[in-house]
C-alpha cells in the first residue's frame, strides 16, 4: 500500500496557485495527506492554501525560506505512517499536474521497485504542448542539460521508452515523488542550496546510494517556471538568479565528485569560466561576465563550505560515482555546443548560453544575416556547394590558379611593390614593436600569425587570392543592397576581375589588394551607417572606422577619398537621420586615432599619400583618358581597354530604367568622382587603382540594382526575352573576357615573381656580426641603385621605415666608381662589412670593387659577387629605443580592442520583442 503526502510550497504564486491546487486536489489517485507551506507570501497564496487544505494543514514560514528548508519543515513535523510505503510528492505553486499524474507515477513505482524518486514530464504552463523537461542531467562544466532541442513540441517523440519511463540522473522538484525512507536516509534536499540545483544534488546522492531515479513520460505536469523566467521576485537571496544558478551548479558538481575528479573539474571550470568571461566581454554582456566570474569566485573562496558539504556526502561518493558517471552529458555534446556557439557568434546571433538553458523556451528563430551561408540544413559540403557565393568563390579560385600556376617556380615571392617575402610573423611583430614602423606591418603580422606564422602564406593568400577574396566579399557585402542573386553574382565576378584587381596582382601591390577586398565591406557598412537603425548603425560606424584604419594603413589615399565622400554624406543625410553625423564622425576619427603617429609623418610629407604599402612604384602620368573612363589603371597585368566595354554599356543602359533613382544617382556620383580622383592621382604620377575601384563599385551597384528587370523581361517573352539575353550576354562579357585574357596572358607578365633568391648572400648573412650591414649594389645601365641590409633580407615594411643617408650614397657611388680614396673607410665607419652584387655583375663594377684595397673578394659566381671589408668595421651604436613608442603600442592595442568590442555584434540588440522574459541561465522555480 502506498501513502502519499503532497507538499505544496507557495511564495507569491497566487497567479498560478489556484489552478495548481485544483489540479492537486483533482488527482485520480486520492492523496492521503496534503500539506501547504507559505513562504511569507504577500499575495493571496496563504489564503488560497488555507481555503484548499484547511488551516491545520498549512505551515507559514518567513519570506527568505528556501524550498528545501520549507520541505524539511514539513517532514520534521509529519508523523510516519506505520504501514505501507510512504511517499512525498513535492509540488511548486506554479506546477499543475494532470489528473492522472500521481496515479501514473505510483504505477511506475510499482513496476520498478528500485525506483525511489520519480518525476513527471514537464510541459509549459502557457503553451501546453511545449516540452520543458524529461529528466535532466548535468555536464561536468555544471551545465544543466535537458537533452531537448529549443522549443521542442511534445508529440510523444520521447515517450517510446518501454513502460513510459526513462532513467535520468535527476528530475525536477516540481512534481517530484520521493519515497520517504530514502528522503530520511539521504537527509532530503540540502537546505544549503536554497534555490537552484537542489534537485540535482539530491538525485545525485540517491543515485550514488544505488537507487534509481525515473522520469515518467506517461505522467505530465504543467510548469510556469516563474522564478527562472523572473515572473516573480525571489526572496531567498539578493543575488541575481543567473549568478546563483552558476554558483550552485559549480558547488553541486564539486561537492559530489570524488576528490581527483573534483580537482580536475576545478581546474577545468576555472579555465572555462575565464574563457566565458572573456567571451561575454567581447559579446558586450558585462553583467554575464561579472556573474560568471563572481560565481566561480564564491565557490573557490569558500573552501569551508565546500569541505562541509563534501564531508556530508562522503559515504557513497566514491563508490557511487561509477553509477552516476554514465548519466552525465557525453563529452561530444560539449564539442557540439562549442561549435554551435562559434557559429552563433559568427552569425551575429546573440548571447552565450553558458550554464544551459533551463528548458526549451529559446528565442524564436529569427532571420539572421548569416542564414544564407551558415544556417542552412544539410551537410557541410552540400551547404557549401549549393551556395552561389561559394561557387563563385571556387570559380574565381580556379581562374586565379589557371592564371598563376606558371608563376610558382620555387623561391621567394616578390617583385613590383613587394619586397621578397622573408621571415616569419615573429620577425614582423619584432619590427613593429621594435621601433616606429608603418602600422600595416602589424596587420600583416597578425594575419601571418593566423597563417601559422608564415608571412609568405599570408601575403600569397592576400595578394594572389585578391581576386577570389574580392569576389566573395563583393557577393556577401551586397546581400542587403541587391536582392536578386544573379545580379549579385554578376556584380561580384565583375568586381573581382576588374583591371584594377588583375593589375594589383601583377605588380605585387599588396596595399591595393587589401583595399580591393575591403571595399565592398566598406560600401555595405556605409549603407548601414547611413540607413540602419540607430544601434546597428553606430556599431557599423565603429566597424567601418576600424576597417578604414586597416585600409588606410595600407593605402593612405583611401582615407582622403572616404573623408570627402563621408563629408558629402554628412551634408546630405546629417539633417535627415538622427545620429548619422555622429556615426560618420566616429568612422572618420577612428582611423586617425588608431594611426596617429604614422599619419603625422604623412602630414609632414604629403607626397607620400600617393604611395601605398610596399616599395614605391609610381604610375604612368600619361595614362590616356579613355583608360581612366574604362576603369583601367594601366601597367602590367591589365587587360586591353575594350575588356570593360560591356560593363560600361550595361551601366549606361541601366540608366534608362527608372528604378532606385536615388541609389543609382549615388552610384554614378561615386563612379564619376572616383574617375575624377583617379585622373588627379594619375597625373601626379600616382597609381589610380584605388579610386578606380571605388568608381567601379559605384557603377556596379547602380547597375546591378536593375538586374531583376532583366529577369522580368526574360519572363515577359518575345523580343523582350531576346533583349534580356542580349543584356545578360553583354554584361557577362566583361568578366568572362577579363578572366579569359588573364588566363591567356598569365600573371607572369608583371614584375611579380615567385622565384626570387634571398637578396642577401648567405655568406654575408652568416658572417655578419649584429649591426653590421651589407651594401647590395645593382647596376642598371649606367645608373646604380643600392640598399643597405642589416644581416638579413628586408622585411615587408622595413624599407619605408628607413631614411636615406646622403653620406652613404656618396660613399657607395665612389666605391662603385673605383676611384680609390676614403669611400670604403666611410662605409666601414657606418658598419658596412660586405658589398654584394647580384647577377648580372657589371664588369666595370666588378673591376672597381676588385681594385679597392679595403675590399677583398669572397666569391664571384654566376648568381652573385660578394666582397668583404678588410679594414676594421665599426658598428654604429643602435639608436636608443623611443620610450614613447612602447606606450603608444600599448595605447594602440587597447584602442583596437575597444573599437573591436564596440563594433562587435551585441547580444541584446537583435531582440525585437520587448524584453519581458529575460532568459535566466538557471533553474527551477520557486520561492
Amino acid at each position, binding site marked *: 500500500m502506498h501513502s502519499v503526502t503532497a507538499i505544496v510550497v507557495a511564495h507569491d504564486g497566487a497567479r498560478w496557485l489556484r489552478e495548481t491546487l485544483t489540479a492537486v486536489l483533482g488527482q485520480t489517485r486520492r492523496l492521503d495527506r496534503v500539506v501547504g507551506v507559505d513562504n511569507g507570501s504577500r499575495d493571496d497564496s496563504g489564503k488560497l492554501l488555507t481555503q484548499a487544505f484547511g488551516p491545520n494543514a498549512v505551515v507559514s514560514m518567513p519570506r527568505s525560506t528556501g524550498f528545501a528548508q520549507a520541505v524539511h519543515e514539513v517532514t520534521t513535523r509529519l508523523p510516519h505512517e506505520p504501514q505501507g510505503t510512504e511517499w512525498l510528492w513535492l509540488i511548486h505553486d506554479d506546477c499543475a499536474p494532470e489528473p492522472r499524474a500521481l496515479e501514473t507515477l505510483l504505477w511506475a513505482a510499482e513496476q520498478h521497485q528500485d525506483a525511489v524518486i520519480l518525476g513527471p514530464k514537464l510541459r509549459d504552463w502557457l503553451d501546453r504542448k511545449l516540452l520543458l523537461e524529461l529528466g535532466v542531467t548535468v555536464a561536468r562544466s555544471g551545465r544543466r542539460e535537458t537533452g531537448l532541442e529549443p522549443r521542442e513540441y511534445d508529440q510523444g517523440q520521447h515517450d517510446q521508452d518501454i513502460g513510459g519511463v526513462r532513467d535520468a540522473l535527476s528530475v525536477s522538484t516540481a512534481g517530484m515523488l520521493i519515497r520517504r525512507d530514502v528522503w530520511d536516509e539521504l537527509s532530503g534536499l540540502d537546505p544549503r542550496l536554497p534555490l537552484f540545483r537542489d534537485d540535482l544534488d539530491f538525485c545525485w546522492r540517491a543515485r550514488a546510494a544505488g537507487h534509481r531515479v525515473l522520469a515518467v513520460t506517461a505522467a505530465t505536469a504543467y510548469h510556469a517556471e516563474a522564478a527562472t523566467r523572473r515572473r516573480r521576485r525571489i526572496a531567498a537571496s539578493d543575488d541575481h538568479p543567473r549568478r546563483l544558478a552558476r554558483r550552485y551548479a559549480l558547488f553541486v558538481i564539486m561537492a559530489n565528485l570524488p576528490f581527483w575528479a573534483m580537482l580536475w573539474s576545478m581546474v577545468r571550470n576555472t579555465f572555462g569560466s575565464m574563457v566565458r568571461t572573456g567571451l561575454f566581454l567581447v559579446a558586450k554582456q558585462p553583467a554575464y561576465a561579472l556573474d560568471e566570474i563572481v560565481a566561480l569566485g564564491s565557490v573557490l573562496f569558500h573552501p569551508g563550505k565546500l569541505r562541509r558539504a563534501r564531508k556530508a556526502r562522503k559515504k557513497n561518493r566514491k563508490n557511487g560515482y561509477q553509477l552516476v558517471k554514465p548519466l552525465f552529458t557525453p563529452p561530444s555534446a560539449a564539442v557540439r555546443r562549442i561549435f554551435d556557439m562559434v557559429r552563433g557568434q559568427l552569425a551575429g546571433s546573440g548571447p552565450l548560453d553558458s550554464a544551459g538553458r533551463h528548458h526549451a523556451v529559446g528565442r524564436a528563430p529569427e532571420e539572421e544575416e548569416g542564414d544564407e551561408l551558415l544556417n542552412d540544413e544539410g551537410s557541410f559540403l552540400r551547404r557549401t556547394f549549393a551556395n552561389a557565393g561559394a561557387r563563385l568563390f571556387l570559380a574565381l579560385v580556379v581562374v586565379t590558379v589557371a592564371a598563376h600556376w606558371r608563376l610558382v617556380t620555387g623561391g621567394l615571392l*616578390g*617583385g613590383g611593390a613587394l*619586397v621578397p617575402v622573408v621571415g616569419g610573423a615573429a620577425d614582423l611583430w619584432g619590427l613593429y614593436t621594435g621601433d616606429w614602423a608603418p602600422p600595416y606591418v602589424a596587420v600583416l603580422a597578425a594575419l601571418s600569425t593566423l597563417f601559422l606564422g608564415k608571412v609568405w602564406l599570408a601575403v600569397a593568400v592576400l595578394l594572389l587570392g585578391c581576386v577570389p577574396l574580392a569576389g566573395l566579399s563583393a557577393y556577401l557585402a551586397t546581400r542587403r543592397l541587391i536582392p536578386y542573386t544573379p545580379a549579385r553574382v554578376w556584380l561580384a565576378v565583375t568586381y573581382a576581375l576588374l583591371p584594377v584587381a588583375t593589375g594589383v596582382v601583377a605588380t605585387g601591390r599588396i596595399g591595393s589588394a587589401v583595399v580591393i577586398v575591403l571595399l565592398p565591406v566598406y560600401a555595405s557598412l556605409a549603407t548601414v551607417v547611413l540607413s540602419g537603425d540607430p544601434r546597428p548603425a553606430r556599431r557599423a560606424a565603429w566597424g567601418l572606422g576600424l576597417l578604414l584604419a586597416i585600409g588606410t594603413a595600407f593605402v593612405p589615399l583611401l582615407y582622403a577619398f572616404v573623408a570627402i565622400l563621408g563629408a558629402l554624406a554628412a551634408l546630405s543625410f546629417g539633417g535627415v537621420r538622427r545620429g548619422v553625423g555622429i556615426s560618420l564622425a566616429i568612422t572618420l576619427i577612428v582611423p586617425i586615432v588608431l594611426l596617429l603617429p604614422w599619419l603625422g609623418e604623412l602630414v609632414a610629407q604629403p607626397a607620400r599619400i600617393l604611395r601605398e604599402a610596399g*616599395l*614605391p612604384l609610381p604610375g604612368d602620368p*600619361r595614362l590616356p*583618358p*579613355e583608360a*581612366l*573612363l574604362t576603369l583601367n589603371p594601366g601597367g602590367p597585368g591589365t587587360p586591353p581597354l575594350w575588356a570593360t566595354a560591356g560593363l560600361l554599356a550595361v551601366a*549606361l543602359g541601366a*540608366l*534608362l530604367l527608372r528604378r532606385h*533613382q536615388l541609389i*543609382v*544617382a549615388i552610384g*554614378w556620383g561615386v563612379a564619376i568622382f572616383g*574617375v*575624377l580622383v583617379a*585622373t588627379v592621382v*594619375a*597625373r601626379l604620377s600616382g597609381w589610380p587603382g584605388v579610386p578606380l575601384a571605388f568608381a567601379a563599385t559605384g557603377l556596379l551597384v547602380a547597375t546591378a540594382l536593375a538586374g531583376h528587370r532583366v529577369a522580368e523581361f526574360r519572363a515577359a517573352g518575345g523580343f523582350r526575352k531576346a533583349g534580356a539575353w542580349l543584356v545578360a550576354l553583354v554584361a557577362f562579357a566583361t568578366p568572362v573576357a577579363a578572366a579569359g585574357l588573364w588566363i591567356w596572358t598569365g600573371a607572369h607578365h608583371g614584375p611579380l615573381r615567385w622565384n*626570387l633568391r634571398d*637578396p642577401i648572400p648567405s655568406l654575408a648573412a652568416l658572417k655578419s656580426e649584429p649591426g653590421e650591414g651589407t651594401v*647590395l*649594389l*645593382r647596376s642598371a*645601365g*649606367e*645608373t*646604380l*641603385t*643600392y*640598399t643597405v*641590409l642589416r644581416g638579413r*633580407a*628586408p622585411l615587408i615594411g*622595413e624599407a619605408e621605415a*628607413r631614411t*636615406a*643617408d646622403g653620406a652613404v*650614397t656618396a660613399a*657607395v*657611388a*665612389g666605391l*662603385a*666608381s673605383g*676611384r*680609390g*680614396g*676614403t669611400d670604403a673607410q666611410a662605409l666601414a665607419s657606418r658598419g658596412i662589412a660586405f658589398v654584394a652584387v647580384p647577377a648580372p655583375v657589371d*664588369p*666595370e663594377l666588378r*673591376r672597381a670593387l*676588385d*681594385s679597392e*684595397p679595403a675590399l*677583398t*673578394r669572397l666569391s664571384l659566381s654566376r648568381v652573385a659577387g660578394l666582397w668583404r671589408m*678588410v679594414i676594421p668595421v665599426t658598428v654604429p651604436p643602435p639608436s636608443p629605443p623611443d620610450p614613447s613608442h612602447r606606450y603608444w603600442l600599448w595605447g594602440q592595442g587597447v584602442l583596437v580592442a575597444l573599437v573591436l568590442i564596440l563594433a562587435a555584434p551585441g547580444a541584446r540588440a537583435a531582440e525585437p520583442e520587448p524584453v519581458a522574459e529575460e532568459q535566466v541561465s538557471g533553474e527551477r522555480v520557486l520561492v
Partner: protein
Amino acid sequence: MRRLIENRFGMLALVLIALAAVYGGAFVSRPAPVRVEQPKPVRAAVASVSTVCPDPGGATVSAVTPPGVEGPGEATVLDGEKTVVLDQPGTLWQKSIAKGADPVRIGATGAMASGLEAGRTSKETSGAARGLAGVRCVEPGADAWFVGPGPAVADLTLHLSNVEAAPADVFFTVYAGEGLVVTDQATGMVLKPGEHRAVKLRKVITSPLVMGLHVETSRGRVTAAVEAVLGQGKGADWLPAAAAPDTQVVVPGVPGSAGRRVLYITAPGEQDTVVQVRAVLKDGSYALKGREDVKVPAGSTTTMDLTTGVGGQPAALLLTSEAPIVAGLEITGTGTLQDVAYTAGAPALDLGSVVADARKGTRLVLSAPFGAATVRLQLLPKEGDPPPPTQVVVPAARTKEIRLNPPPGGEKGFSVVLQPQPGSGPVYGGRVIEENTSLGQLLTAQPLAVARTWALVPPTTDNPAAVLP
C-alpha cells in the same frame, strides 16, 4: 530640373555630360611625353692609386702625374728601402734601377694620384733578351689576361706581387692551341702580404706553342705581369695585359713598319666561335682578304698571320665574335737580330690616357674604328715647360700614326697626355718605341690604357627596390 531627372533619358544625359567632362579634363591634363633624361655618370678625380713595376732591375722606371687636378697629394715611390716622394704634377720622374732589385711600388694619393702613370722600359743590346722591353706598371687586381706565345717557343716568366695587407691565393689557367691545359701546379700559390714571386712557366707547362693566360685570385689581389724571352736573335718583351673577354675586341697600336704581325685569339668560353677580323687602316676599315674570319675552338688559342693583310701600315684590329674572346698581337721588327713587341685588346680612351715613357722614336697609333675623334695631345718634357697642346683628328674608321719628336727639355724623356675631346667617337691607341741599330730594329709596344685620372661615378640612389631583380 525635376522634369529632367524624371525623364527616362534625363539621367542618361546627365551622366553622359559628366563623363564627357571627366574625359575632357583627363585629356587636357594629360602631359606631353617627356623624354626622361637618364642621369649620366659624373667624372671624379681618382683619389688613390697603387701600382707595381715588375722586375725593374736594369730598367728605367718612369712615373708621371698629368697636371690639372688641384689640391694636395703626393706619390711615394718605394724602391727597395729607398723612398722617393713626388709632389709635382706634370713632372716626369725617371730612375734607372739597379739589377736584381725588388719590384718598385708606387702609391699616390690626392692630386698626385689623379692620372698617375708609371712604366718600366729596359734595353738589352745583346744576349737572349736583346731588345727593347717595356710594360706599364700594374695595379693590383683579381684577374689578368695575357695572350701571346707559349712556353714552347718563349721563356715566359710570370711576375706576381702581393702589395696588399691580406694574403692572396693565386691560380692561373692556360688556354693552349689544343685547348685548356690542366696542371696542378697552376693552383694553390699563396702570396703573403708584401711577397713577390717570379714563376717560370716552362717549369709548369712546356708544350704550348701559343697560349692565353688567365691569372686569377680566389682571395686577395695581386699584380701580374708576363715577360717573354723568345731567345737569341728573336727578341724579348713583356706581354701587356689584355682586355677581359668580350664579343668585340679592338687591338690597337699596330705600327706602320715592316715585319711580321701575328694575331693571337683565345676563346675562353665553352663555345667554339668564329671571329671576324677587320683592320682599321690609314685609309679605311677593311675585312682582310682571305682572312675575313678565323675559327677558334672553345677553350683554345689560335694564331693568324696578318703580315700581308696589314702590309706594314699602322692599324688597329677590330675583332667581333659570338662568344667572348681575348686577343693580342705580336709585332716583329726587322734586321738580322729581330726584336718583338706585343700589343693586346684594349679599352677605348674615353677618359684620356697617359704614356709615362716616351723618347726619341716613339710613335702613337690612334684609331677611331666607330666614329671620328679629336684628341688633344700634351707633351710633358722631363725638364722645362711643356709646349702648347696639339689637336689630332682621326677620321671615322681610320687609323692615324703620329711620330712624336721630343719637345724642348724632353731629350732625356718625356710623357704624353691624350685627352679625347667632347663629341669624339671611341678612340683606341697604342704606343710604339723603335730604335734602329746596325743589327736590327729594337722595339717595344703597349696598348694605351685608360688614364687613372678620372673615375666615372655612376648616378647612385638609395632604393630599397634594389633587392628585386
